[in-house]
């Protein structure tokens, strides 16, 4: 009786979320190398950005990994430091096409952001790093060209240490602009020595000066203008690790959240006139519940309770507890939902890096996947290894997050120094898969094998007035039982990483959707009827 009732209301009985780790089988052979040499250079701790993108438009998601370099010269002196692009052969195997694509990179790379910045239909790549950034223009023939200098997004001296980046159309002009999250000033020649007399440690971030973030406006001609000062973004010094974009108050303009390490987070509210006002304190997203900052790392901004307003999750380090800020809607700000949801206590023993809020079992509620590892020196003092196994937390009706890792698959019992995480459906079966970059270890590819056959819908947006990928568009799906699901298009997810641009919905056992509404950047809305389910639907802006 209960099961029938649940089905009648379109609620799927819970299927255990399950993944199979298949990187080796898939030919995805990559190891993130940080160049560590026993000298405790701070940059060794970070890095590991990974992108999911369809670079050749064959309908199958490919993967790009960033990589480190030799320290202190910061050169990719051997092939083991190369950034790598893997083409999905559309059969869950991958081929390394780095050389042919021309994206091996230079310098010490940290982060990647994938999007079609020139609206030519091909996804481009921006790679941020310690000593240089690189903008790769996708030529459409399997190759990329380094257009950094021409674009004006690389030249700055001294180079800030960038850890995350993302593409966002902040002024709704239909062209994607570039946001870069910067961490601290770092100079290998002036690295402080931290720790005890008898034992050196990596330094606490307080030993370094923070940096402002950067915003580059797309001039629509292949060049960008640094508007960091003009926009107000550059007025705020932080220690940025993750970035996420969403329209927090439904005013039609995309806002920007930056998770900072050991100082308060930033929430840049888009004023709609080319400027931003930093409002993390006013919105309640700055700090933990007790008023202390955490070692903020990866972040995602999505609606976890299906109330139509996107919520924030931020990973931290051991004994921080990860943050969950529930959006109260409109201009009412956020409330701290970490304790109530079980996430704060459930994550207190973890150090998190990449993460994402995705409906992993397609039951209509977005779950969470965390890439975890303690800082490499910390293990000694905890009496346990710094390596951790990744974790999956299932969203229980928008109220609580439950750690279901123990039944999610054998790899969730295997520890590694996990870093960047990115999401995409590599086998196009409607279940979101995950790729994870691991420090000095093999990358992981988690194929989602969750049983139950719950229904799903994926939208591939095609902007006409809006940017071509529709990034920034909000989508609302109404189910026959009246329930509403919401999501939005973004590739900036987690830490240093970039995920697929599709907008996904798990539908549970609902046999159809009643309506789909797309709100394009700029405010135009488009209603879709008779949308089929269990497929990817292309939506062209009208």
């Amino acid at each position, binding site marked *: 009786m209960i099961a029938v009732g649940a089905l009648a209301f379109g609620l799927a009985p819970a299927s255990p979320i399950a993944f199979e780790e298949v990187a080796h089988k898939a030919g995805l052979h990559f190891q993130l190398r940080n160049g560590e040499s026993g000298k405790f250079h701070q940059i060794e701790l970070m890095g590991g950005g990974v992108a999911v993108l369809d670079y050749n438009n064959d309908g199958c998601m490919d993967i790009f990994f960033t990589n480190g370099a030799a320290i202190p010269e910061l050169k990719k002196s051997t092939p083991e430091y190369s950034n790598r692009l893997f083409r999905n052969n559309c059969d869950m195997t991958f081929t390394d096409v780095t050389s042919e694509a021309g994206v091996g990179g230079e310098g010490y790379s940290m982060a990647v952001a994938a999007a079609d910045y020139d609206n030519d239909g091909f996804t481009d790549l921006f790679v941020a790093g310690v000593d240089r950034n690189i903008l790769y223009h996708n030529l459409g023939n399997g190759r990329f060209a380094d257009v950094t200098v021409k674009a004006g997004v690389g030249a700055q001296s001294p180079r800030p240490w960038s850890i995350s980046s993302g593409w966002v159309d902040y002024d709704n002009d239909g062209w994607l602009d570039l946001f870069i999250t910067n961490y601290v000033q770092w100079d290998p020649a002036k690295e402080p020595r931290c720790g005890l007399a008898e034992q050196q440690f990596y330094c606490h971030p307080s030993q*370094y*000066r*923070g940096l402002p973030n950067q915003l580059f406006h797309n001039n629509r001609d292949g060049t960008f203008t640094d508007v960091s000062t003009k926009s107000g973004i550059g007025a705020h010094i932080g220690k940025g690790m993750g970035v996420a974009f969403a329209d927090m108050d439904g005013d039609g303009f995309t806002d920007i959240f930056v998770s900072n390490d050991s100082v308060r987070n930033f929430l840049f509210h888009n004023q709609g006139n080319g400027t931003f006002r930093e409002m993390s*304190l*006013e919105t309640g997203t700055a700090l933990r*519940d*007790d*008023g202390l900052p955490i070692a903020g790392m990866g972040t995602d901004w999505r609606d976890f309770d299906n109330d139509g307003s996107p919520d924030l999750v931020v990973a931290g380090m051991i004994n921080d507890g990860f943050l969950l800020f529930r959006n109260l809607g409109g201009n009412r700000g956020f409330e701290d939902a970490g304790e109530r949801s079980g996430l*704060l206590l459930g994550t207190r023993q973890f150090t998190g890096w990449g993460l994402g809020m995705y409906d992993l079992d397609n039951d209509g509620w977005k779950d969470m996947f965390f890439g975890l590892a303690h800082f490499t020196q910390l293990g000694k003092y905890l009496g346990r290894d710094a390596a951790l196994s990744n974790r999956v937390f299932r969203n229980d009706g928008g109220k609580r997050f439950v750690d279901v890792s123990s039944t999610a698959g054998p790899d969730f019992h295997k520890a590694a120094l996990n870093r960047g995480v990115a999401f995409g459906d590599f086998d196009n079966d409607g279940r979101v898969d995950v790729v994870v970059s691991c420090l000095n270890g093999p990358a992981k590819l988690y194929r989602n094998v969750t049983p139950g056959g719950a229904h799903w819908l994926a939208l591939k947006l095609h902007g006409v007035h809006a940017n071509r990928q529709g990034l920034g568009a909000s989508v609302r799906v109404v189910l026959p039982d009246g329930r509403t699901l919401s999501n939005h298009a973004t590739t900036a997810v987690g830490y240093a990483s970039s995920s697929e641009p599709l907008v996904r919905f798990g539908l549970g056992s609902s046999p159809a959707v009643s309506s789909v509404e797309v709100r394009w950047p700029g405010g135009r809305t488009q209603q879709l009827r008779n949308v089929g389910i269990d497929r990817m639907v292309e939506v062209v802006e009208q």
Partner: protein
Amino acid sequence: MMRHAVLFLVTFLPGGAWAQGYERSPGYGAYKQADALFTARKTSEAAGALEHSLKLDPDLVPALTLYARIAMSINRFEVARESLNRALAVDPKSANARFLYGLSYYLSNDLQHALPQFEKARQENPKDARASLYLGLTYESIGRFDEAIALYEESVRRQPSAESYLAGARLLHSQRRLDDCERWIREALKLEPNSRDAHFELTRLLLRQEKPRLAAKEGERALELSGGNVSDSQIHYLLVRAYRTTSPALAEQHAEALRRIEDRSAPETKKDKP
């Protein structure tokens, strides 16, 4: 955790109780002087007086443990342990020395070594509430929450203190045992009605209970008080949240106050260490 423990070192360990029986030592007078100087946060002068004391009596246990406390306050944990080893060689049953040994590991985040030392201190000295408290804090840091709560309960049984009650209250809060949390905070306030930390925790709890007006009242009270471990920034943040719906203008005032504090300690004023 670090700031908390440094204050603890200075204020929570009066030399008198642990120095009984040593009055006849030739170094005792200099030791008492050093203790008073350290309590007054005159660390360099205290170290000087202490060196004089130990010259007169190298085996004076209170002086050796005070030396360890001074060393820990400047992050010289190995030096502290050397001094404590000497103290324990002279007096293996020194409760203070044993506890401080564990603390030297705890303050350097070496939790796996802190645990057995605190456990030993707790077993050897059934009246020592600090050992129970810090063992609890250590267990809490490694995720053993049930054991931590039990130890906080033991600590208050051995010797009730606001510090122990508040440690328990914070953990109970994180576990959403809000009634128990409130009870513990109220016990702390009975012992120390002007405890800034206790009023802060009550503010947090009232916010959690969705009582913003009462939370604001408590937060303003906390801001008036001094001492404790909670910073002005933390209180201002709670007040921003408390006033957000009831008085946006006051919320903005507290946000600005917090920003001014940040500006005063901005990175531009920090010098890079060599």
